[in-house]
């Protein structure tokens, strides 16, 4: 079987026109995707992980045949997204927005029936499939199958959106930030289902998120994307192993002034965040914490700060992301 998704050096530049005064306007070119390449297999979840504006949605839109790439090629289910768009459309389930995308005066079930007709599902099959999905996503328990869409909560909207993506039982799912803004139970439900779809039903899922925790627990393979470029890829564990062997010293300090001053002489990368009034969280990325931890604590105490908690941790996926996007940590 061929790969589910094959992307080869695709680029996309947007032309952004901005008004300057009444008659003048200027044109800017924004490179959203700069020659990215990757593949995805059936039975796995590949995650595009990156901050806002990294190029995740642009990539998904190209694969969903909603946007033409400027150069490069992409194949979904073996079909070219430009030349064979209608074949691609038959093979994908798409979830691009959580908060919109349905008709407000129809209830959940009617909305699904509407899209089933557009997807060409025979009515008898569509009704059975909708029954199954309503139960699977617990839309019936939430009353979403009878409530009008305009009365839905965000969690219900997200579940209905996922139900639509699963409606035609397509072998490939393209899910763009499916848990964005959701309450924890809804987000957890969607993550569980996504994993189930990939591993039990052998679907290929391309999943975008900017949530490190989510990428780590949902995805089999992560593509770190930043400013239109894939900066690293691998499983969450592989990615953590790829960065230099640094550990993270995590300190909670009750400060009597600026806690950064006594730490200035330590040249490691550090992040200082104020948690409450005088409570700060300090992270320092060091190769051998046992050699410097004592000195760090001493410097802080001598400056009048109280060290409330000290932990030495392995780097998280967030640290990996910062490492790859900023060059070093």
């Amino acid at each position: 079987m061929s790969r589910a998704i094959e992307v080869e050096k695709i680029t996309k530049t947007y032309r952004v026109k901005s008004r300057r005064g009444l008659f003048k306007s200027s044109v800017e070119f924004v490179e959203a995707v700069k020659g990215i390449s990757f593949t995805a297999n059936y039975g796995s979840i590949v995650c595009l992980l990156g901050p806002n504006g990294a190029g995740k949605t642009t990539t998904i839109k190209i694969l969903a045949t909603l946007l033409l790439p400027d150069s490069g090629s992409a194949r979904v289910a073996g079909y070219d997204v430009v030349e064979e768009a209608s074949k691609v459309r038959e093979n994908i389930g798409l979830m691009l927005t959580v908060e919109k995308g349905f008709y407000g005066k129809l209830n959940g079930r009617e909305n699904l029936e509407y899209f089933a007709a557009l997807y060409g599902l025979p009515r008898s099959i569509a009704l059975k499939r909708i029954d199954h999905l309503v139960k699977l996503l617990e839309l019936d328990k939430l009353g979403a199958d009878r409530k009008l869409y305009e009365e839905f909560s965000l969690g219900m909207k997200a579940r209905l959106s996922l139900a639509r993506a699963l409606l035609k039982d397509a072998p490939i799912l393209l899910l763009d930030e499916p848990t964005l803004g959701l309450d924890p139970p809804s987000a957890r439900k969607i993550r569980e289902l996504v994993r189930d779809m990939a591993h039990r039903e052998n679907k290929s899922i391309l999943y975008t998120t900017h949530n490190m925790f989510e990428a780590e627990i949902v995805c089999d393979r992560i593509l770190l994307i930043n400013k239109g470029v894939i900066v690293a890829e691998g499983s969450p564990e592989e990615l953590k192993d790829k960065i230099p062997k640094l550990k993270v010293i995590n300190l909670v300090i009750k400060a009597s002034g600026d806690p950064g001053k006594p730490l200035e002489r330590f040249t490691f990368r550090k992040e200082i965040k104020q948690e409450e009034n005088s409570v700060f969280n300090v992270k320092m990325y060091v190769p051998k914490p046992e050699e410097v931890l004592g000195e760090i604590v001493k410097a802080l105490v001598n400056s009048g700060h109280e060290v409330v908690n000290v932990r030495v941790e392995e780097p998280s996926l967030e640290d990996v992301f910062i490492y790859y996007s900023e060059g070093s940590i």
Partner: protein
Amino acid sequence: MSFIDILRAEFRLEYNDMFRRKSVLLMLILYPYLFTLFTLFIGYAGGSPGVFIEKFGLNPIVYLITSSYILMSILASIDVLLWRPLYDSENGTLIYIISSPVNRLKYYIALPFPRYTELILMGATSILPVYMYYYGLEGVLLSLLMITLITAGCVVMVPFAIFIAGVCHRVGESWRIINIVRPIVMILMGVYYPRFYIPLIGYVIGSLIPSSFIVEIIQRTLLRLESNTYLLLAVAFTLFFLYLPASAWSIKAWEAKKVKEGVKIS
């Protein structure tokens, strides 16, 4: 992919929307009367109904309620096609329609059909009571004939409307273009001022609009003028078929432009 399934889906969407949004239902009943009252008010300001009867041999109320009904019906069917992509774009549903494998021509042809059934109902609340009042039982038959002709007028308009919608939506801020196109179509169709009374150039341009032939049949019937009904009907339906390839091209070109720019998520 069955046209019937698409049609059924559109019917459910339209009727649920109408019955769950009572103001739409109310406006559907009131609009022909509001149009008539407005036009009568303007008419009375300039002359008396006697002059109209003398000139056309027809009561202005009958003429105007019929014209308003024609206008409401045929323009409503164009409106569905002109405004729906904009509504879907705003609603966030357009991305799912474009990324679906639905046959575009079947989909766009199906869009205005539910509205036609509403318009038949509208005929029962607008022209039927007025005709019955003026013509008695003959008025019932006449109104049924008018409703049938107007429905035919709506149907033959579909490919032309798809063509115009595709062209309009290729331009940025297409809703502005639509607001210009609608009144032009209304004038050229000769709804309020019969096209056989307008200058020849207007008549020729108006002849590009399939419904204008059916509007002419209706007006000639009302004014009891000689009419080559079958020929006019044949021309209208011929135009329906001639516009089909153009409408398919128009949708394709619009969608290609949309995909080139990137279909907006919402």
